[in-house]
Structures are given as structure tokens and as C-alpha cells.
């Protein structure tokens, strides 16, 4: 008697050629980062959870770094590449000091990062990178990069797993997109202004607690690094751990 094999939608698959397994050098370690520039400060924040798939690797693995020279750097995506990028940057910065005996400007750091990323154009660092610092006039500035080095200076930028959740909120609350001047009867857009540090911190905390609710790879803790002319300060706030 012939055995009856139950046919499922999977059992119908017939493969004649052998399956080729290839080593995948990338993984996604979740997490989200967010940078906002103010008049005389810039903040760069990131959650402290690190994941692979559905597993939480760690509840506290910081990914925003104070790399010196009043620069904050964070790369979000594949953690192996992210740490490598930050390490290589720190090393290049050290050699810049040896060679030139002066601090690296934020704009120069941004250009350096572009070259580091584009240098690996055909085997990219799988990361969304954000650099925060102060510009020549002492105003806060944020530079954001795509994985292969395309970059621009912005007022604010979210990166990583929940970037698509946070970015529209930032557009509305930092750049006042879709907001009208209350006295203009909906005729004039609300005029943009610099936010105060307290407002920015509150925005960042709201953005992250909301992202934690909606994204499984975001949570556990929020670390905010604040850069001013007086140096870098770190604040930590717990997030939901579920």
C-alpha cells in the first residue's frame, strides 16, 4: 500500500537543484537614534536595547558615543559595523590631533565620515549614522548619513528601526510642518524658532516612549547625550522593558 503524504502548501514545493547556503555577513540589531539641534546645543539620543531577531541581547548596550572634540556619534543598524565605524573614527580623530594639533570641526568630521562610508561603497557599513556637534558660530548642528555616505546638515533626524515612526513627529514638532500661525486664520505657516533644551529633552522622551509602544526592537532605556560649548553631558531615562 502506498503511504499517503499529507499535502500542505509547503509539501507541494519541489526543488530539483540543491539549495545554496551562503554566509550572510549582516544582521539587524534594532534600536533607534535621534538627534536634534538647538541654538547653542545639540542632543543625540538612542535607546539602550540591542536585539537580534526576537531575542533581546542586552537591555543596556549604549550606542551613542562621545568621541571627543565636542562631537557625538552614533551608527545604528548592524552593530558589528556600527562599532567598527565608531572605532575607526575615534582612531582617525586621534591621528588628526597628532598631525595637526587642533580640534576637528564638526563639518570636517562629517566629510570624514562620508569618505569612511563611501570607501566601503561595495561592501557597505549597514548603518544609519548621525553626528551631532556645534558649528563654527557655536550653533547646534546635526549631520545625518545613509549607509554609503550621502549626507546633509539638518535641524533634526531620527535613524534606525523606529525612524519612520519618529520622523513625522519631529517634522511637526521641531520644524512645525503642517502647523499654522493661530492668528492667521490658517493662512500663514507657523514661524520656526529654536527650541529650548528643556523642550527638546521632553520631545525626545516622548518620541522614544511612543516608539517603545509601537516597535518591538525599541525599549529598555533611553540615553541622551547633550553637547554645549561647556562639553558633553549624559542623561538616562528608563523605558518600558516589555
Amino acid at each position, binding site marked *: 500500500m502506498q503511504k499517503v503524504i499529507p499535502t500542505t502548501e509547503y509539501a507541494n514545493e519541489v526543488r530539483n537543484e540543491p539549495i545554496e*547556503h551562503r554566509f550572510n555577513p549582516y544582521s539587524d540589531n534594532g534600536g533607534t537614534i535621534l538627534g536634534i539641534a538647538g541654538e547653542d546645543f545639540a542632543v543625540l539620543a538612542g535607546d539602550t536595547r*540591542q536585539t537580534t531577531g526576537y531575542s533581546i*541581547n542586552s537591555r*543596556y548596550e549604549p550606542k551613542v558615543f562621545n568621541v571627543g572634540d565636542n562631537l557625538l556619534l552614533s551608527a545604528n543598524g*548592524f552593530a558589528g559595523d556600527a562599532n567598527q565605524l565608531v572605532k575607526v573614527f575615534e582612531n582617525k580623530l586621534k591621528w588628526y590631533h597628532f598631525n595637526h594639533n587642533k580640534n576637528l570641526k564638526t563639518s570636517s568630521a562629517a566629510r570624514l565620515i562620508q569618505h569612511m562610508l563611501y570607501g566601503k561603497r561595495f561592501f557597505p557599513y549597514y548603518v544609519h549614522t548621525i553626528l551631532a556637534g556645534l558649528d563654527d558660530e557655536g550653533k547646534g548642528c546635526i549631520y545625518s548619513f545613509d549607509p554609503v555616505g550621502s549626507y546633509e546638515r539638518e535641524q533634526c533626524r531620527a535613524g534606525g528601526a523606529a525612524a519612520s515612526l519618529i520622523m513625522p513627529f519631529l517634522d511637526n514638532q521641531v520644524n512645525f510642518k503642517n502647523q499654522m500661525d493661530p492668528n492667521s486664520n490658517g493662512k500663514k505657516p507657523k514661524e520656526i524658532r529654536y527650541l529650548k533644551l528643556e523642550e527638546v529633552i521632553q520631545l525626545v522622551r516622548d518620541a522614544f516612549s511612543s516608539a517603545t509602544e509601537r516597535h518591538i526592537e525599541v525599549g529598555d532605556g533611553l540615553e541622551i547625550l547633550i553637547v554645549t560649548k561647556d562639553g558633553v553631558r549624559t542623561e538616562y531615562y528608563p523605558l518600558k522593558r516589555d
Partner: protein
Amino acid sequence: MNHDPFHWGRPSTKTYGEYNYLISNASNVDRSVKSNSEFPKMHTQQPMITGTSVIAIKYKDGIIMAADHMGSYGSLMKLEDLKRIIQVGDDAVVGISGDISDFQYLERLLDDLQIEDAYDMDQEHLKANHLSEYLTRVMYNRRTKMNPLWNAIIVAGFDDKDEPYLKHIDLLGVSYTSPTLATGFGNHLAIPLLRKKVETEDDVKKLSKEDAIQTIKDCMKVLFYRDARSWNKYSLCVIEKSTKSISLEHEVQVENMKWDFAQHITGYGVPQL
């Protein structure tokens, strides 16, 4: 056409002249180096003999770590006396799961590192944080060459400030730390049990050594029950800050197992009652 097994399908040299291997990078073997083998260079694409989980937990005075003694070849129990936790220097131990040949290669790297460190020095300098940084770089470099060392590693010991230090490194060069760490199957089975004991860094300060050892022993039992590629003999490592000691005990047996339910199991090839 050339019918030599190593050149099969290539245009024959007699008719078309010497084949140019530089065209489209046709071979990944560097032709400028005269190698003995004409066979393409091969990389580890899957692990062969493997070791299963390594688990570790922090407690108020240090770290407990464990890994069993088995090396499996698929479902075959190939090795039953394989010690996968090794001491490196005076201040660190390394527990390695995954491919055993790669483990032995790492063992040699770490040996070389120790010789280098001890040479011309009056004392050891190799601390756990240096070791984990080194291993992370080795793993990341190999993954970048698309030739990974197929392992997951847990480094435990004392850092350069003599504080307990714990780190997990995988084959992609991703590293992280946490009060509880596990590799492989332990990530699914042991981590929830370990995190029940230490949810936060504050819980670490409340966990006693005895309690931590018992938790690790329980986890090794659960892993032996449920991980088909695990064994009931394991290495147990106790790292203690107050005495600044690292003790590594082998041949520890899984204790207090309950198998009386087994007599009620039918099917699975056992004759039906």
C-alpha cells in the same frame, strides 16, 4: 573542452591557449601565488562538529559560567570529553560554542596571545576586557573576509579595574554585555530562567553565590532535558571578586533529574502498550 576533473568545462589549453583567470575574477584563488591545490579556496559555510550552549550569570561577588562536555557531529555524539571553557591568563576565562575546529583555532590564538603577553614581563597584563576586544576584532575581521569563525563566545573575568566583566561575541563580530548571557539554545531556554533571578543590574547585587550556582545548575539541567545536542557532564566556572579567584571545575554532573514520567511515554519507536 578540458576533461580534467579540476578544469572540467574550461576551454582546452591546446586549442585556446592558457586560461586567463583574471577575467571576471573567475577564480577566488590568487594565481600569483603558486598553490599546491588547483581546487578553489573554501570557507566554512557551515559548522561540522559543534558544541552547544554556554551560559553565564552575574551575582553580587562575580560571575558563574557553565558549558557542557559534548561535541556533536550532526546528531552523532562525536566527543564526550570536550572542555569548552578555557582559562586565559590569570584574569579571564573564555567559553566557546559552535564549530570545534574553529574553537581549537581560537584556543591557539589565545595561547599565542598569552605567550606574547608573558614574554619579558614580570606580571600578566591580559585582562578580560582586552581579551574580549581582541576576540571581537578577530571575529569581525573574519566575517568581513566572508570567512567567519563559526562560534559564539562568552568572555568572563576581571577587567583592568579588577571589576567582574562579562561579554558575548558572535560570528558576525557583534558583541554585547548583560547580567545574564547565553549562546545557542541557551538563548531560548536558559535566558528566561536566568533573567527571572536578575532582571536588573540591582538584582545582581542581591544574588548570592550559592543561589547563582544553583540557578546555573538548574539551567544546565533544563538544557540537558530539552536540548537534544547537550550532555549531562559540564564545566562550571566560579569567578569571585572578594578573593579575586577564578575556579574552573570540570566533569560536573547534572543532578536531581526526574525521569519517572518516562515510563508513561508511548510511541516514538517504543512498543505501544
